[in-house]
């Protein structure tokens, strides 16, 4: 903050989004917004650092000489890779009845200027890549080859709106169900009433995950960069996306819309 490094510690909870304080000034900060809510620095906000939420496998394939936070031996037994089903059972203390989503539905939240939109994770996983517009900005939201990693981009090549679809999905629109084998289990979960529903699976052999754009017919990787075709070497502009529970996203984005398709 203002050229001064702050160090944060866990200080409390505000409707299940945590509060942290910095050791230097004692100011209270809200986790989701990075805003100072009480104390000497109230009114300021931390800058959001560009970040990704990826599987370890996807990350390893993208970086070289990356470093991984090592588990603290003392606390290894506290780590829980399967925390999501546990947390999903916890009660919520704020809810928004009358909205179409349930409190603990997982959404991908995007904010562009004053406008924000929540993308239900189940829809995204089925439909990826999704092309959408928020606040006049064309967007591309993609769930990665592993069915878990995600990224959002401005869907423009050289300032011109572009459409993308998953290579291998030719003939279907970019917003219909993905045929990626790894995505199929997620879409099956989306409809628990039909567990025996046959999954449209192509051959299980790992095909490279590639997007094609309809404007320059180039191939794009999950990092949003063109790897072949007329656009080769170009990368799409990234848009921050937050994976969150619906109640938390809605609480901090009261005017959010919900993606429907």
């Amino acid at each position: 903050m203002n050229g001064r490094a702050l160090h944060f510690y866990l200080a409390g909870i505000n409707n299940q989004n945590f509060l942290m304080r910095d050791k230097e000034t004692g100011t209270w900060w809200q986790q989701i917004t990075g805003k100072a809510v009480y104390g000497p620095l109230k009114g300021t906000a931390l800058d959001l650092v560009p970040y990704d939420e990826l599987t370890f496998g996807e990350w390893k394939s993208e970086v070289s000489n990356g470093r991984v936070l090592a588990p603290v031996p003392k606390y290894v037994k506290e780590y829980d890779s399967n925390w999501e089903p546990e947390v999903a059972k916890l009660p919520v203390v704020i809810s928004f009845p009358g909205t179409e989503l349930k409190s603990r539905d997982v959404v991908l939240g995007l904010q562009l200027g004053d406008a924000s939109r929540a993308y239900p994770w189940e829809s995204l996983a089925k439909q990826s890549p999704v092309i959408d517009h928020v606040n006049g900005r064309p967007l591309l939201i993609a769930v990665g080859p592993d069915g878990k990693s995600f990224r959002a981009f401005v869907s423009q090549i050289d300032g011109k709106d572009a459409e993308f679809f998953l290579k291998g999905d030719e003939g279907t629109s970019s917003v219909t169900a993905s045929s990626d084998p790894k995505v199929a289990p997620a879409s099956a979960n989306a409809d628990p009433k039909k567990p025996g529903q046959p999954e449209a699976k192509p051959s299980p052999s790992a095909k490279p995950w590639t997007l094609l754009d309809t404007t320059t017919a180039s191939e794009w990787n999950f990092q949003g960069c063109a790897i072949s075709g007329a656009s080769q070497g170009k990368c799409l502009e990234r848009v921050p996306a937050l994976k969150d529970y619906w109640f938390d996203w809605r609480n901090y984005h009261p005017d959010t819309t919900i993606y429907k398709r």
Partner: protein
Amino acid sequence: MTTAKPRFGTLWVVLLAFALVGFGSFFFPAFIIRPFTHQSPRGLYWAMAVRQRAPIISLMCAIACLLLVMLLWQISDKWRKGALSAVMLLVTTAAVMSRLNYFEWMFHPVDAAQFEAESSSKLDAKEMILAVRYGDDARAYPISQMAYHHILNDVVGGVPIAVTY
């Protein structure tokens, strides 16, 4: 001695007032900012305002109580001495608790973050991570670890960051 009695009665009232304020400065914010309950904006504001000042309030109250207890001790019978001890215990506890962070008893912080090369990490390829990259400095923060620690202070490519989950 007949005039002394009301004076000591007043001292008891002052003592209990200090004890109440001292203990309240710990208890009120702890009660408002507790998990699995709704926090109203006003309640939260006052909880933070009190918590911010609790270390000094609770200490001053504990000192005031100690002085009053010393004054009252000699003229008190064993029941009153018991009550005085209980009051001292309460305000001392509040003064100590206001200086501790019990949230970090539930979710221990990482004091000194250690990193390992991606090649030597035992993390499963399907595990989710938060990834940050500045220039050549690429780091992964496994969500299974972050969901426990919640906050990690780090410096990536010279940029100080706080990783949260």
